[in-house]
Each structure stands twice: as C-alpha cells, then as structure tokens.
C-alpha cells in the first residue's frame, strides 16, 4: 500500500488549503485532516477507524503551512504502520508535536523572513527595467523553493515515517537561511543605492531627501514596535504636509 502518484498529487493539492480554516484555538488541525483524507480513505476502511483518526488529529496542530507536508507524510506512513501494530498511536502524536515546532521555526525563518523579502526586492529592481520580467522573476524565485518544499516534504516525510525526526534535513534548511540572509543583505544594499540615485536623477535632491527620510523613520518606527500600517500612515501624513507646504 505505497503512496502512488495520484495520492501524492491529491494530497499536495489539498495541502494548498491547509490554512483555510485557520483559527486561534486549533490552528491548522482541520486543514491537516483535510489534506490527509485521500490516504486516510485507503488506510482506514470503517467509519469507526476513521472517526478514531479524526478525533486524534482534530486537536491542536500548528506549523509552517509549507513545511506541514513533512509532518503530513511522516504521520501518514506511521498511521499505516500503526494499522499493522508496529507503532502506537501515541507515538504518532508525539512525533507530530516535536516536528511541528522545529519545522515551524525553520519555515517561518526561511520563507517569511528571508525568501519573501529577497524575491520581492529582486522583483522590484527588475520591474523598474521591465515590469513583467520583474513580476515573473519575483514569482519564480519565490515559488520554485515553495513548491519544492511542499512536494519534497510529503515524499520525504512519507519515506521516512517515524525516522523523520532523525533524517529531516533541518541543517540544510538552516544553511539556506544563512545564505539567504547574506543574499538579502547584498540585494538590500543594492536596492537602497539604486533607488536613492534613481530618485536623485529623476526628481532631484528633495526626492532623494524624502527617500532617506522615509528609510530612517521606518527603521525608527520598527525599533519602537509601531505597526506597519500606523508607520505608513504617519509617513503619508508627513508627505502630505510636505506637499502642501513646499
């Protein structure tokens, strides 16, 4: 009863919806069960067994939505093993909890803190030359690793089962975080100078001054933990005032 390509694609498709029912109390639990349904139908034949699975998995579950595929793959393999009496259901829950924490931390750091801003910066720089090249570059640079994590996560997690705790390539992902930090810093430096000189060339010193002012104020606002919308509203009001005065 191996995971065939149809099941793989079906579960991957469903895992795209994993956050649809996100809520503060149980977070991703319903999405997790929903993603597993194509395989669960094959593993458990009776409604009693399926009910037991759902009761065990509809509690709290949270991790990074892309990296949830690793946990999904491993837990499905372990459910199969549990059916044969090789693994206790409590063991599955333990591994799920353990993996979700570490994968959540790596996923947030890699995808939200590094890859998203880096690909956005690249897209912005390229958009200034050609809008559609910039957009395409942004979406491709972000989505290739995104789709890889989803696909590889499910396949690798399923292959590893309970061994995923030992075999999970966390070190490789942490190295990717390190590389993207350096790359992001490099592109950030390029972007600042590029925009600054572009503003100076296109608009003159006042525009370049406004750019530097926005940069410094934003860093101060972030340090003061002012929410982004409030920071932007204050900068907009500053721009409005400057536009009315000068």
């Amino acid at each position, binding site marked *: 009863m191996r995971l065939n390509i149809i099941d793989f694609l079906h579960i991957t498709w469903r895992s*795209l919806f994993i956050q*649809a*029912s996100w*809520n503060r*109390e*149980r977070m991703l639990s*319903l999405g997790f*069960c*929903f993603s597993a*349904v194509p395989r669960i139908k094959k593993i*458990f034949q009776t409604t009693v067994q399926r009910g037991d699975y759902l*009761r065990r998995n*509809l509690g709290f579950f949270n991790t990074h939505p892309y990296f949830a595929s690793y946990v999904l793959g491993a837990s499905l393999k372990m459910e199969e093993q549990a059916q044969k009496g090789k693994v206790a259901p409590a063991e599955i829950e333990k591994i799920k909890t353990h993996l979700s924490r570490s994968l*959540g931390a790596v996923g*947030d750091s890699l995808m*939200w*803190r590094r890859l*998203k*801003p*880096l690909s*956005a910066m690249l897209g*912005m720089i390229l958009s200034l030359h050609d809008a559609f090249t*910039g*957009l395409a570059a*942004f979406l491709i640079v972000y*989505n290739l690793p*995104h789709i890889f994590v989803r696909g590889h996560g499910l396949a690798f997690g399923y292959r590893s089962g309970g061994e995923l705790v030992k075999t999970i390539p966390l070190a490789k992902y942490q190295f990717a975080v390190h590389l993207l*930090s350096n790359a*992001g*810093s*490099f592109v*950030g*430096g*390029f*972007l*600042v*100078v590029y*925009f600054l*000189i*572009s*503003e100076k060339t296109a*608009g003159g010193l006042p525009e370049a001054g406004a*750019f530097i*002012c*926005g*940069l410094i*104020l*934003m*860093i101060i606002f*972030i340090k003061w933990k002012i*929410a*982004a*919308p409030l920071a*932007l*509203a204050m900068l*907009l009001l500053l*721009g409005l005032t*400057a*536009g009315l005065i*000068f």
Partner: protein
Amino acid sequence: MGWDFALFCLIGGLVYLDTDAVGQFMISQPLAACTAAGAILGNWPLGLAVGLILQLPYLVEIPVGGTKVALGNVGAYLAAGVAVHLTGQYDLAFAYALLIGVAVSWVGIPLQDGLRRINLHLVKKADAAGDDGNLQRISRLQYSAAGLALVFGAALCGLFFLFAVVLWKSFFSTMTSAVSFRGEFIPPLLLGAGAGAALWLFVNRRTLRFMIFGAGLGAVYLIFDLII
C-alpha cells in the same frame, strides 16, 4: 463601472485567499496584485507604481504563530484600484488612495479575526463529523472555509472601494482645485520606508559587509549606466 468592478472584487477575493488561506503563491503580494488592479481598471503602470511603493513595508510583519498582522496585500490592492479610478498622476487623490489602502490594512485585522472565529465554529462542527468518521463532511467544511475567505476578501475590497470613491467625491474632490499640492514626495518617502524595512530584515553585524558590497555594486552600476 460594471464588469470591471465585479472583476476587481473577485480578484480582491483571490488576493485575500492567496495571502493566507489557500496556496500562498505570492500572487497576492502588492507587486503582482496592484498591477492586476491597475490592469483591470485601465492603468496598469499606475497600479505597478502603487505595488512598488507598498511592497516592502508590510514584510516586517511576520505571520508567526497567532500573531495579528495587517492585511497589507488587500490594502495595497485596494489602494491601487482607488488610485487608478480617481487619478492618473501623483496628486492629492493618489495620496488619498494610499491612505485608504493603509487604513483598510489596519481595519482588516479585527475583521479577519471575526472570520477566524467562524473558522473555529467550522472546526467544532468537524468534531461532530469526526465522531461519525465522516470524511466527506471534513472536506466540505474545509472548502466552505476557503469559500468564506474568498467572499470575505471580495466583500472587503468591493465595499471599501465604493466607500473610498463616494467619500472622495462627496468631500475631498473639491479640495484638488482649492489647494496647491505637490505629490512627488510621497512615492520616494514610502519607497524609503520599504528600503528601511528591507534593511531591518536582513542587515546585522554579520551581514553588514554584504550590504556594503551590494551598495557599492549598485553605485558602480548606476555610474556606468549614466556614463553610457
């Protein structure tokens, strides 16, 4: 304003869906979403300009765990739509559109919280489905949650777009001829804010040398570009 408005609302729903609930392919990011808003309403370069301005500042809000983050993507999409509908240049209406977008990104936080409470209600319904071992019901509930998110996003964009246009035409449109206003400061100010956000995310003592190297390369590239 008929089919294009309906399409604007529908794409707004998809923007909200992609932001959080389904897929997260980043088509909801301002760079892509604002260009789409501009294209739907007839001026994609202005949409792209709004996207460039609002792309980076919201990225400092990381959706970790249960953190409440602003609906920056929806706000930017709406700002692009309003900007294209009301204006064709960097004037007072453009600043107004950005302000509306920023306000909606903030107002959206408690509204989204309400949607998540409905999601919890769906999960509690799933408990009953779990007792019966009913997998079909689990699927229906999850698809319902996605559908609700789509409707929520579309309604949010549609209602606030109409509100912004009516508010402008009722109160602010007369101001454009009454006051002299230079809007050229706003794009660089917000681009600077975005650059500040990017530096905040990446630059620390360990990575500072990479930033300096990138800045140097940027300067060399631009000097080369100017000479040629």
